[in-house]
């Protein structure tokens, strides 16, 4: 019986091989296949903050004026060669000469103006403008072909950092709807988009910079982590930027990397019993974060503030809370003795799949909190519903809640975190503390040491004194990479996959 089966198997696979139907692992070609978690909704340059758009677009098809060095966090030239501040609200950028868009149009000051205009269009809401530029209006003034001046509606000391997210696109692109065929200055051009199936790009010959090794790429998408992992394992794909920790079981192909995300549960610090600091501290002390790491990967770091070490304003001196359930019990008992309603139910507002094992993590924490006598209940939402609880005005302002949250600050400055998340006026903030507000107000217009110090103080205050969050982790992500590629993920892999950083290993 068993023998028969083996013959059958051999027969079938032989037949298939003869028919040439089995998809072979790539022969020695120079194209790569990348499998993403979802299809990009469009490839609109002003939507490049959308991770599935950015992973195809950024650095491959389009490029910005400036880039952030992932190692140092410094702003470096890309399509601009240098820049200067001419007034608190005005900047002058000098452009790289001899750069052409893939449609032949020259990259000059007029093209920059057109790209900024694209960003500020009114027929659709551009995520880049809203999210990164904080809704600030920019006026462009063409000085000459290669010099352009920007005037912002309010002073922005880190304007060159902000320009890292603005993708430059050809002035010939039309302004109707979201583009599915963007034209940029990057080393690759889009060759086809079969809706629902794949996107292919090809290397162009007249790129201004160094010619990349990879000659072309095909992007496909699968929502299941196991499938993405399987595709790389079988050679159907070469690289997937994200798989779950459970699927990362092959040390040869699976790489873990800090992905710039920091997780927390936001505490509604103004609603009893969470308005009592002892209860907030007890919540933190009761969870065994070292044990819980199994859900996210051993590379995850206990967090003590909402930004990672790459961000200007990160405070290296804050010590993460240690696991101490006895102390937590004691704190709850003390609070109870003082009349704090610690028996009141606390709602945990979770979001399905906000990160890998999001639901399991909440279940585990709920069990640990019930150990110290706190009564919590989980409500899981889809993204749309969860977001209602993220923003002010909160739908149920009197509900004591812990809001599951994940934050990434890829621009490398704490200003993109502190105001919205912790200022009394911040739209996601559940904290109201005069000292924090003052520190943020002091930091924002400042530069250099003053700016850094003020942000660091604010983070220390939030962690040690206020206990504003249930602090979780600086997260790690897992990628699976075909061994024929020589490529390592970086902090930016969450939002971009630079094809020109990929090399091939010498085949044996």
């Amino acid at each position, binding site marked *: 019986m068993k023998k028969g089966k083996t013959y059958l198997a051999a027969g079938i696979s032989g037949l298939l091989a003869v028919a040439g139907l089995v998809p072979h692992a790539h022969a020695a070609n120079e194209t790569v296949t990348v499998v993403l978690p979802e299809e990009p909704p469009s490839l609109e340059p002003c939507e490049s903050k959308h991770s599935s758009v950015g992973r195809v677009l950024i650095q491959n098809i389009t490029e910005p004026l400036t880039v952030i060095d992932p190692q140092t966090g410094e702003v470096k030239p890309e399509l601009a060669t240098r820049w200067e501040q001419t007034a608190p609200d005005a900047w002058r950028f000098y452009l790289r000469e001899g750069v052409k868009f893939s449609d032949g149009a020259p990259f000059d000051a007029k093209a920059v103006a057109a790209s900024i205009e694209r960003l500020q269009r009114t027929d659709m809401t551009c995520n880049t403008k809203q999210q990164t530029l904080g809704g600030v209006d920019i006026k462009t003034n063409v000085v000459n072909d290669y010099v352009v001046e920007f005037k912002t509606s309010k002073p922005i000391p880190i304007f060159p950092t902000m320009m890292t997210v603005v993708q430059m696109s050809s002035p010939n692109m039309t302004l109707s709807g979201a583009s599915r065929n963007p034209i940029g200055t990057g080393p690759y051009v889009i060759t086809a988009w079969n809706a629902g199936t794949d996107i292919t790009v090809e290397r162009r010959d007249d790129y201004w910079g160094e010619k990349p090794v990879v000659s072309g790429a095909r992007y496909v998408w699968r929502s299941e*982590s*196991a499938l993405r*992992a399987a595709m790389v394992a079988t050679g159907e794909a070469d690289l997937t930027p994200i798989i*779950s920790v*459970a*699927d990362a*079981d092959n040390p040869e192909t699976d790489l873990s990397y800090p992905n710039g995300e920091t997780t927390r549960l936001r505490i509604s610090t103004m609603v009893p019993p969470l308005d009592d600091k002892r209860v907030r501290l007890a919540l933190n002390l009761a969870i*065994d974060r070292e*044990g*819980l790491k*199994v*859900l996210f990967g051993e590379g995850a770091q206990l967090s003590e503030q909402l930004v990672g070490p790459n961000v200007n304003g990160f405070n290296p001196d804050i010590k993460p809370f240690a696991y101490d359930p006895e102390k937590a019990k004691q704190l709850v008992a003390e609070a109870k003795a003082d009349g704090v309603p610690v028996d009141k139910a606390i709602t945990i507002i*979770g979001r*399905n*799949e906000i990160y890998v*094992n999001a*639901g*399991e993590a*909440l*279940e*585990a924490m*709920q*069990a*640990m909190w019930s150990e110290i006598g706190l009564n919590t209940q*989980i*409500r*899981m*939402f*889809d993204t749309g*519903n969860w977001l209602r609880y993220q923003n002010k005005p909160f739908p149920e302002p009197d509900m004591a809640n812990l809001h599951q949250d994940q934050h990434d600050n890829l621009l490398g400055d704490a200003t993109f975190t502190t105001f919205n998340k912790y200022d009394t006026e911040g739209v996601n903030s559940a904290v109201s503390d005069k000292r924090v507000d003052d520190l943020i107000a002091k930091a924002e217009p400042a530069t250099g040491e003053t700016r850094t110090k003020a942000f660091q103080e604010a983070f220390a205050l939030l962690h040690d004194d206020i206990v504003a969050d249930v602090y979780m982790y600086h997260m790690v992500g897992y990628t699976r990479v075909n061994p024929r590629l020589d490529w390592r993920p970086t902090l930016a892999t969450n939002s971009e996959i630079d094809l020109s950083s990929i090399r091939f290993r010498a085949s044996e």
Partner: protein
Amino acid sequence: MTYLTESTKVMKSAPQRSRFGTALSLLWADKFAMFAALFLILLAITCMVGPLLIGKAASGINFAGRNAPPSFDKGFLYILGGDNLGRSLLARIIVGAQTTMAVAITAVAASVIVGALLGLVAGYRGGLVSDVIMRVTDMIMSFPSMLTALVVLYVLGPSVSNLVIVLAITRIPVYLRTTRAEVMEARSRVFVTAAIAMGASHARVIFKHILPIVLPTLLTIAAVDFAAVIITESGLSFLGLGIQAPDFTWGSMVATGRNYIASAWWLSFWPGLAITLTALSLNILASWLRIATDPQQRWRLEGGHNHD
């Protein structure tokens, strides 16, 4: 056919016994059905007393026992292994049985009752009433169940009872259409037309003559549907719309376990096996029931004459 005569023989040989005794001896005659019945009885007992006995083991987190493989060394509770938070899988299957059964039974029962009633009315009355009911059914059928799920869960909040509503709504059309089709067929049979002609009341015609014809088909579908409901629920969990933690069912256990299929198959295998065994038992028992109630069918066949 041999089976049929065998069971009728058993029945005839024990005319004096109570109905219960008859049922038992009929069950004894079919070993598959007997095992199925035993399994379901065991399941019912588990649902009732299981959570009281080992409810705590189903919620105790234990990182050391995370994804522990099935083994006899770690004590009775870990025979089937541990789940992704180190909880005993055996305990979770036992405790999960209650919610699973509650969801599936309520959803199937609700959709059978509503569907069959509307189907009876549509098939029996015909005309405008039938048209209206059928077109409303068309609407429900063309309505994606996921949208129903999202609307209900958004408006009413995510809970077990709302999940039952979603599942029931989406299953109504199949019972409705089946019932209507069978009723229309039954209505045209001679003995039914005769009964109507002799002035029998509508209720009498429906419950005495038509329902017995329709019921076996409905039962067959319901038995299979039972599994379908559990799996749909599991699918909703897979898409993030199903039962919400800390509640759990066998379906949601399979959905969670799928993340570990390659590294820890037991997480999704055992609850999946529980679903399959339950569904199988129900189906075997349903088909036994059809045959055990056959005399009625025979009467019907003798009463009417039916040409191709």
